[in-house]
Structure formats: structure tokens, C-alpha cells
């Protein structure tokens, strides 16, 4: 897991990515805003989505209520 540590915390890059998904956003836009390479963004979006922290709609991503709560810590 590159986004969520074994003790359940978000990594710094995951916080940045989740923080950039308040509204529906493309991976390319997230990469541009966060400065994280696109390949890492795509991988992290997949992982955060599998964890239920993001939802995907028409190729764009938005954090879920769970994602919002996780981000607030």
C-alpha cells in the first residue's frame, strides 16, 4: 500500500491527492495541482478508490464522505 500505512494513516502523497479531489477532477489535473507524476496519481487513485475513499464518475475522481473524514484525520 503506497497511500495508507500499515497502521491506517494516509501517506503525505495520499493526503495531497485526496486533498485535490473535493470536486470531480481528472488524474491529469490532480497531477498538475499536486506536482505528483501522473503514473503515481493513477496508481494512488486506484488504491484510494479500492479503500472507499474516492469515487470515480466518468473518468473523474471525487473524495467520498469516508475520504473526507480520513483526510480530516
Amino acid at each position, binding site marked *: 500500500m503506497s497511500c495508507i500505512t500499515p497502521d491506517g494513516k494516509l501517506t503525505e502523497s495520499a493526503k495531497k491527492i485526496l486533498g485535490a479531489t473535493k470536486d470531480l477532477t481528472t488524474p491529469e489535473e490532480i497531477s498538475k495541482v499536486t506536482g505528483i507524476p501522473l503514473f503515481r496519481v493513477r*496508481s494512488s487513485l486506484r488504491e484510494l478508490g479500492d479503500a472507499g475513499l474516492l469515487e470515480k464518475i466518468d473518468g473523474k475522481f471525487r473524495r467520498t464522505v469516508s475520504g473526507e473524514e480520513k483526510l480530516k484525520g
Partner: protein
Amino acid sequence: MEEDIESKGGLPLIGDPAPEFEAVTTFGTLRLEDYRGSWLILFSHPADFTPVCTTEFIAFTEIYEELKKRNAELLGLSVDSVSSHIAWVRNIEEKLGIKIPFPIIADLNREVASKYGMIHPGESRTETVRCVFIIDPEGILRAMLYYPLTNGRNMDEILRLLDAMQTSDEHKVATPANWRPGDKVVVPPPNTQEMAEERMKEGYECVDWYLCKKDL
């Protein structure tokens, strides 16, 4: 099992879609499709904590910024574990002050190595040889380089080849031997007699109809 993996391998071919993979890396789980839209330089090394590989990782790091300028990413691979990779890159940073900025696949079950033909049993049955696969933004395998265990790769050639392929794509030209950015390029040869006759009147620098060069 080992025989099965190796027999299912074989060399991928230039011009074919690069074999898909999903792999555990030092940056988490990555798929080939994560690199869609950028060039990918996928390379294998024999083993972590070995001298030639360490010099190569330093050299790959030194060209990383140049690769990014060319919309290219690096992805390493060996059959070591992710813990070994992490320990090695941390050791390189601690001892040499160089932070490895790209992910490394931990291909413990040789799945990716097998798909890409990275294990050459005549050289080693347990390690990947020094391969370089250059994959374009559409996921097509565009070039392959293979080096033996004993000899490190030439980063300048990897950059030169990437420059040459990007130039060919952009301008629909070929590049001659030892071409460097700024040198004349080769105009694709005519494929009819009429085109051959016209070629000599087109103002290119021609040795004959089949070998003409021009500036970009």
C-alpha cells in the same frame, strides 16, 4: 515452475503492444497502463547491492531530469524483494547522497521478467540481465537494448535513442548512424520509380535517390 515461467517467456517484439503488467514496486502497485501518455523506460538489473547496478542507478538518476523533459519516466526491475529495494536505495542515499527518484519493481515471482524476456538462462538462471525497453505513450514497444551482467549501460545512448525516436515521430524522418540532435536527418526513401526521379530534384543533400538528408 521455473521451467514453466521461462518457457512462457520469449522476447517481445518491436512494434507490438508492450506486455501488460501489474507489479509491486517501491512506489506501491503500478500497472503499465499508469504510464499511458508518457514514454516509459523499463529496465532490469541483476540484483540489489551489487557494484555495477549501483553505478547504473546513480547514472539513471543523473539522466532522470533530462528524461522528464522528454516526457519519459523510468521504472527499474529485479527479482529482489521490495524490502531489499528499499534497503538498497536508502543505502545509496546514505552512502552516496543520491536519492533514487523512480520506482523499482520487486519481481520475486519473475512474472514481469518472463513476459519481457529479461532472464537469459545462458547468462544467469536466477538474475535478470541488463535490459532496457523503451515504450511509447501509446504503450507500443519501440526499442530494446540488452547488456550482459558484467557491463553497465550507456545512459548517453538511451537519451540519444529516445531523442532519435521522438524526432522520427515528430518529423516523419529516419536518423543516420551516430545521429545527434541538430544533425541532418534521413529523408525516407522513395518507394516508386516516379518518386525516385522526383527525389533528386527536391533540393535535399543526396548521395543518390535512396540516401538523402536534410536539416530540420
